[in-house]
Structure formats: structure tokens, C-alpha cells
């Protein structure tokens, strides 16, 4: 059953990949016959494949639930894949609301990256510690992830808006920031590639090192150490010696992973620019040529409107109910909680700016991007860097 579950997830990954290609194809096909009403044949195939992929991933979720005896939303891998599942679900709903295949071209890659990224973390089925043994675990985490995924759809819409609206004929602040977003996505890809490569090579290097309290500890690197630990001493023969040594207060191993991701991302990005000789945004621009800006704007806004209440319910209200039961108080200023509050405040500001200050169109699109960065920060950095009660890392 465990392997069935893993295979279903893998199948859904492949299906999303194929669906992306079909969605992209559906755009090209439209060129000549703009007048055509509704999605064309390519788009219909694409959404069909997406739905099959969604069902397959749902199968992964259910089988894993059965095996574990609890909903698989309790660690980095499980949460990330569930997030991707919700994102695809939200996309399917929005697709039928607005009939825009283009949305798939931007959403599915994000879902793919999420699944790939999450799969780099431990995939073991873990038992639940006492604090997590509650039905509120499923209720809270699934609703929160769903809310975040719907909000994430506004990121996809925002991205489409920006790619279309930003003038690519000359470099500007706007093209710079758009490229920065693309670079961020590429670095995620870089992380996945580097991690997979070294894990296939079975790279393992052990270090003795001295932590900030002066204690000697052992640490195992699974990637060649660019940033080595404080007073690190390489124990495994024939492995790469660190280039720079970090002071004790910095987690050199995690920093090393970040450096590798940035490095590989930069290489991929530069190669792309060298070969294509255009910005990533400029390359994508023809893809979005036929979409109406006000429609994308509305899809983005709609996603925030739908997602905000769901997010509030899941990430704040259900979270508070559970915290009251498990930790005796409904709020404790734990970093994860604070970042959920920050997300909430951010989207509240978004709604006010939009409704009362008339921040439509491009401004709104930029805000949607920033919102998603906050959500991702809460998922990645708060779990891995700022450790707290919720941290999956510990």
C-alpha cells in the first residue's frame, strides 16, 4: 500500500507535467481562430488529464491516510504535496468558472515544483506525537492549506498579468522584479535537481564541529560542503573540503543547501539567457498574448476573495480552537502563528487597497505575488529556519 501510494503520487506528477504541455499547446492553437468560443480541443484534453492527475493524487492521499492511520499532513513532505493537491483542485474549479486554459500553464508548474520540492524531504510515514493526535489536525491543516492554495491562484493570475502587462522592450524596475520572481522559481528547480543528483550519487560527508555552546558534535552533509560548519573537521575520506567556514551561530548545513540552490538556479538562469538571449518574462509574453487583462485581474481578485475567508477559518480560527485544546491557550505568538497572522493582515491590506484605494490591475498583481511569497516563507523558512512549536524540522 505504501508503494501504491507513492506510485499514485508519481503518476499525478507525470500527468500534471503532460497536462501543462497540452495547456501550452491549446494557447498556440488559438492564434488563427481567435473568435472560437470556449476552450479548444487541446484545452479539453489538458483539463481532462489534470483531473485524472488530481484523482490520482487524491488516491495517494487516501491510501497514505489508510496506511498511517492519520491524515498525511504532518510533515514537510505531506503538507507540501497536500498544498499542491489543493492548488490543482482550486485551479480546476477556477478553470470551469472562467474557462481559461492559460491559467493551467502557470498553475500546474507551480504545483509541480511544490511536489518536487516537498519530495526532497523525508518521506517516511511518521507517528504522531501527542499534541498532534487530534481531529483538529486534519481540520486545521487541510482548511489552511486549501485557503493558501486558493490565495496561491491569485499568484498565478498575477504572474500572467505581469508577464502580459510589463513592457519587455527595455529593461526597467518592473522587468527586474519579474525576472526575480522567475529566478526564485528556477532556484526551487535548482534545489530539486541538486538534491536529487547528490542523493543518487549517495553523497555523504561527515564532519566533527563545535557548536555555539562550545560542544563538539557530528553532522552529516548530503551535498558537498561549500559552507562548512564551525571548526569543522571532515571525517569521511575523499570528500569535498568546505570552501568557507561558518561561525557557530549559523546553521552551515542549511546555508549550504541554500547556496547550492542559488548557485544551480543562477547557472540554469544564465544558460537560459545565453541561449535564448531574452528575459524569461519576454519569452513567456507571446503565450499570454490573447488573454484579456481585466479578466486575469478579476480571476486574481476573485481568488483572494474566495481564499481569504477559507484561510482565516483554517489558519486562524481552527488553529485557535485546536491550540486552546492542545496547548491550553488559543494563541501563543509562536512563529508559525505569527506568520499566519501576517498573511491574514497582508491580504486584509490587499482587499482594502483594492476596494477603497482602487489598486487594480498591475498593483494588485504585484500584491498577489508578494502575498504568495509570504505564504511560501511560512511554509519553507518558518519550518526550516525559525524553529517553533510547529516546526517539522525538529
Amino acid at each position, binding site marked *: 500500500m505504501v508503494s501504491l501510494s507513492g506510485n499514485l503520487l508519481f503518476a499525478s506528477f507525470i500527468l500534471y507535467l503532460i497536462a501543462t504541455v497540452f495547456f501550452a499547446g491549446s494557447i498556440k492553437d488559438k492564434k488563427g481562430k481567435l473568435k472560437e468560443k470556449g476552450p479548444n480541443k487541446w484545452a479539453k484534453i489538458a483539463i481532462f488529464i489534470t483531473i485524472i492527475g488530481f484523482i490520482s493524487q487524491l488516491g495517494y492521499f487516501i491510501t497514505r491516510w489508510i496506511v*498511517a492511520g492519520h491524515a498525511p499532513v504532518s510533515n514537510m513532505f505531506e503538507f507540501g504535496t497536500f498544498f499542491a493537491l489543493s492548488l490543482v483542485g482550486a485551479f480546476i474549479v477556477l478553470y470551469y468558472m472562467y474557462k481559461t486554459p492559460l491559467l493551467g500553464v502557470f498553475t500546474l508548474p507551480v504545483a509541480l515544483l511544490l511536489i518536487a520540492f516537498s519530495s526532497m524531504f523525508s518521506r517516511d510515514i511518521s507517528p504522531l506525537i*501527542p499534541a498532534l493526535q487530534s481531529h483538529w489536525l486534519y481540520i486545521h491543516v487541510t482548511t489552511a492549506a486549501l485557503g493558501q492554495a486558493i490565495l496561491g491562484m491569485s499568484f498565478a493570475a498575477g504572474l500572467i498579468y505581469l508577464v502580459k502587462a510589463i513592457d519587455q522592450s527595455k529593461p526597467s524596475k518592473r522587468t527586474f522584479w519579474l525576472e526575480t520572481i522567475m529566478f526564485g522559481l528556477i532556484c526551487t528547480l535548482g534545489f530539486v535537481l541538486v538534491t536529487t543528483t547528490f542523493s543518487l550519487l549517495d553523497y555523504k560527508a561527515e564532519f566533527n564541529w563545535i557548536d555555539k555552546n562550545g560542544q563538539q558534535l557530528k553532522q552529516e552533509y548530503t551535498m558537498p560542503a561549500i559552507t562548512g560548519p564551525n571548526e569543522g573537521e571532515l571525517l569521511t575520506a575523499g570528500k569535498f573540503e568546505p570552501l568557507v567556514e561558518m561561525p557557530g551561530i549559523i546553521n552551515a548545513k542549511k546555508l549550504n543547501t541554500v547556496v547550492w540552490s542559488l548557485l544551480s538556479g543562477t547557472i540554469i538562469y544564465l544558460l537560459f539567457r545565453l541561449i535564448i538571449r531574452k528575459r524569461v518574462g519576454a519569452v513567456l509574453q507571446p503565450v499570454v498574448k490573447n488573454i484579456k487583462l481585466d479578466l486575469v485581474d478579476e480571476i486574481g481578485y476573485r481568488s483572494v476573495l*474566495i481564499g481569504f475567508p477559507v484561510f482565516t477559518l483554517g489558519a486562524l480560527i481552527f488553529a485557535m480552537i485546536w491550540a486552546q485544546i492542545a496547548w491550553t491557550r488559543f494563541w501563543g505568538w509562536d512563529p508559525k502563528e505569527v506568520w499566519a497572522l501576517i498573511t491574514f493582515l497582508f491580504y486584509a*491590506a490587499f482587499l482594502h487597497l483594492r476596494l477603497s*484605494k482602487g489598486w487594480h490591475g498591475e498593483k494588485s498583481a504585484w500584491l498577489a505575488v508578494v502575498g504568495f511569497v509570504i505564504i511560501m516563507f511560512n511554509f519553507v523558512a518558518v519550518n526550516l529556519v525559525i524553529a517553533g512549536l510547529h516546526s517539522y524540522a525538529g
Partner: protein
Amino acid sequence: MKHVKCECGHVNPHGTILCEACGRVLQESEKEKQLVDMRYEGSARRSQTYNKTIVDKVWNFFSSVKVGVWLIVITLIASALGTIFPQEMYIPPIMPAAEYYEDQYGWIGKLYYDLGFHNLYSSWWYLVLIASIGISLVICSLDRVIPLWRALKAQRVSRHEGFLKRQRVFGVSEASNLDESYEKVKERLKAKRYNIREEDGNILAEKGRFSRWGPYVNHIGLIIFLIGGMLRFVPGMYIDEVLWVREGETKVIPETDGQYYLKNNKFILEVYDKDKDNQAFSEAIEEKGMVAKNYQSNVTLYKKKGETVAGQPPELEKVKDYPIKVNEPLKFEGYALYQVSYKLDELSKMTFTLGNKKSNESFGEVKIDLNDPKDRYDLGNGYAVEVVSYFPDFEFDDSGEPVTKSKVPNNPAFVFKMITPDKKEGEISFVAIQQTIEPFGDNEYKMNFSGIDTKNVSSITVRKDLTLWLIAFGGLIFMIGVAQGSYWNHRRIWIRRVNDEVWIAGHTNKNWHGLKREIQAVLEDTGIKEPEDQMQKEENKE
């Protein structure tokens, strides 16, 4: 106060921009504009009308959305700052916070501490921020909701042409056999759940007006929530105590006026077993080592019976047995008891034998309850041991005197007086773990350590929170409000006959795409032309 009478006869409050009833533009400055600002129906808002006194100025400050958004953004950034390093409540109690931050994070940590960020969320300025948001919520809502309510109530079906012309969605169309199309349009509008009002052959189709109250409802929810949070500072509303109870021990529950007692029968700690538990977990358990499965205190709750007589133990009546687990607190009369922590194997009893050093002969055993030692233990035949002093958590202080750090028997030490038939005065001996000191020279007798008993201790949080219901109520109202404002929109379609033409205007508070699609569907094959989005027309021109 001055009122403005519109040509249509309706009397509007001073400051009104668009007549509440017919929509005629009343303010000169607005007449120039190509589209009217429909946000609050052009109603007279206090903040837009008065700006003389201090009250006006404060009111205008807090009712501005710009200010509101700034407050939200500043709060957001401040909250983020508080997560850079752990807050004081989460740092281990190994050293004072003043040193901890510098020790762990260097000069940045020191700066963090000096700026007070280690207690950010209870700092005065953070609370001022939250309070300002609260004030802003009240004022901005009052500023808008009353005029908006008036305007929506007073609106008439027939709107002035200038009003229709300046709507974002607007179109004029000439149409033959209008009556037939009219019926069709009305049918379709009804099918789409529009409320239809008619007057002189003009139509106002409206739906989802209640969604306009969504923001105000959710703001009220937030205010209730904040008030609930403030109530916590009222004495008696909020209780947060920790109770350590040893197995077998019965303790009064704090803050219950001595009415309730808790007995800890047993503390249980379970860990996952690789072989016995779900096989799927085995790899994770192997990797992580030990994973806790259950923390549980089996307790009995007692209630005091009658009055306590001074010096006598209270008479207790059993209320119930309950296994307190994480996520399963014991609740009674507004109190909740939570399993929060534990200590395994705390020393509870120590056993010694009194023996002769030379002959190794033993004269009996003394079992001392470390939490309640007796003064004297008689061993019979003239043998006895007196406990002269007891140090449950012993150490030597700076002057070399034995002292105790706490009442918890972490490191017990005793001064014994050993009384034997031949030493009736008794010999004095100081006994601690792994050491014996004989302060008055060599003794003949000795207390030989022979064993310990241990017990587990449960840490139970005693919680009473009378603010919860208000906070939950605020949350509920908030959710109703956001759902109301987000999942419905207020849409209006005006249809007016002007001579041989049909004028159609549409307005929605959000989701224009949806409105346009709806109008398109309603007008299909009626011969009436679809109105245009004037905003988009402008954009396309650019």
C-alpha cells in the same frame, strides 16, 4: 445642519454628492467627471464633510482607509520582527534574558534585546497599534455604514439620466417592439434572482444588497474579538496556574477557593514501539529514535465537603476519575486541567539501615518519605533515629553551610541523630547522596543507604478563561461578515426608457466580469444592445 433638497424633491443631508433617491449629481465638482464615484453611493460621510474641530480631525484620521492600511501594514511588519529571534517566553531558562540574546546571537541579539523586541507582543507600542486598529475599525465603520444605509434605502427606481450616463457599465439602444423584450428581460432577471422594482416603465433590478453590510459585520466581529482579548486583563476572567502533583499525592487546585482537590493516581508516558505499533512507522522511528505516543495523568477530582475545621484535613467527596491526556483536558465548572509536562522518577522515599560500623550488625530499617519526613523513627530495643535537619535539594552555600535550593527532593541530605542503647545521647551524622560527614569525630554507628523509591510527577495547567465565549463569538461574527461580503456581491441594473431609447446602466461593488456576463445573458436576442464597460473603453483608447 443644512440640508440639500434635490430637484426631484428628496431632502439629502449636507455633504451628499449624489441624491439618495434619484442619483442626480449634487456637487459641482462631481459634474465634470465622466464616471461617478459609486463607492458609498455618493452619500454624505462625516469625514468628507467636516474638518474644523479637533474631533473632526481625529475622526477623519481614523476613518481614512489610508491610515487603516498603514496601521495594518505597520502591525504586520512589527509582528514579523518578533519572529527573528525567539520571544522571551520561549528561551530556555538557563540564563537571564539580558545575557541570553547576546550569548546566542551576538551583537544583533543584544540590540534585539535592548530594543525590547524579546517581548514584542506585549510591548506598549504593539498594544497601541492593535488598539489604533480597533479605534479605526469603529470610526471608519460608523463613518460609512449609516450614510450608506440611508442611501440604499432611499433609492428610487427611476434614476436621473446624468446618473445612468456616468455609470461604468452603460449603454443606449434603440429598440423596436420594446414591450415584448421588456417581458423577456424581466423574466430572465427574475430567473437570475434579481429583485425587480418598476416605476413608469423603468426597472431597477437588484440583488445581493445584504452583502454590502459584510465589511461592517466583519469589523464588528473584529471589535468584539479585540474586546474579548482586553477582558483578559480584568481580574477573575482569566486564570493560568501550574500544578505539579506527584503520583499518590492529593493537592488543592489553585484558584478554586479551596473547593477542588486533585489526586494524581498515575502518570503514564508511552513511546511508539517499532515492533508493536503500525509497521508503517518503523523507518521514521528508527531515524528519530524515540517518539512519544502518549502523556497521560490518571487523576481523581474531589470536591470539598462542608467547612474545613482548622488543623484538620478537609473532607473530600469524589467527583470523577479522568485520564488527562494532551488534547483531552479535564473540564469542570469552567475550569480545564491540561496535561502539559511531567517529570519521571523523582525521588520519593529513601531507605537506610542503622548499622554498627565495625561489626556490620544491623539494627533495623528506616524508610523516609522525602516529601514528608518524620522527626523520629523508632527501631525498638532502644534503637532510634531522629531527623535533626532535612535538606531536600541540598548544596553548600558560600559560607560552607548546607542549605536547600528548593523543596523538591532532587538531592536530599539529612542530619541524623542515631540513638542506641550504648549511645543514649546519640551520634550525629550528616548524610547526603554518596557522602557521609561525621562532624563530631568518628561515630560507632552509621546510616547505611539501602534503596530508593521514585515517583512520577505530572505538571497540570489549571485554566479558566471566561473571555473565550466572547472571543469565539467575535470570530463567528467575523466569519459571517467576510463570507457575506466575499461570496455575494451587490448588483444593480437600471433600465430606463427615454423617448424611443432604452438606457441601461449596471453597477456592482465587485466582480464586474460576472455582472457583464449576466447582463449579456439577460439581453441576448432581445434586440437591446449590450451596454459597454466605459472604463475599459477608456483603457483601450490609451
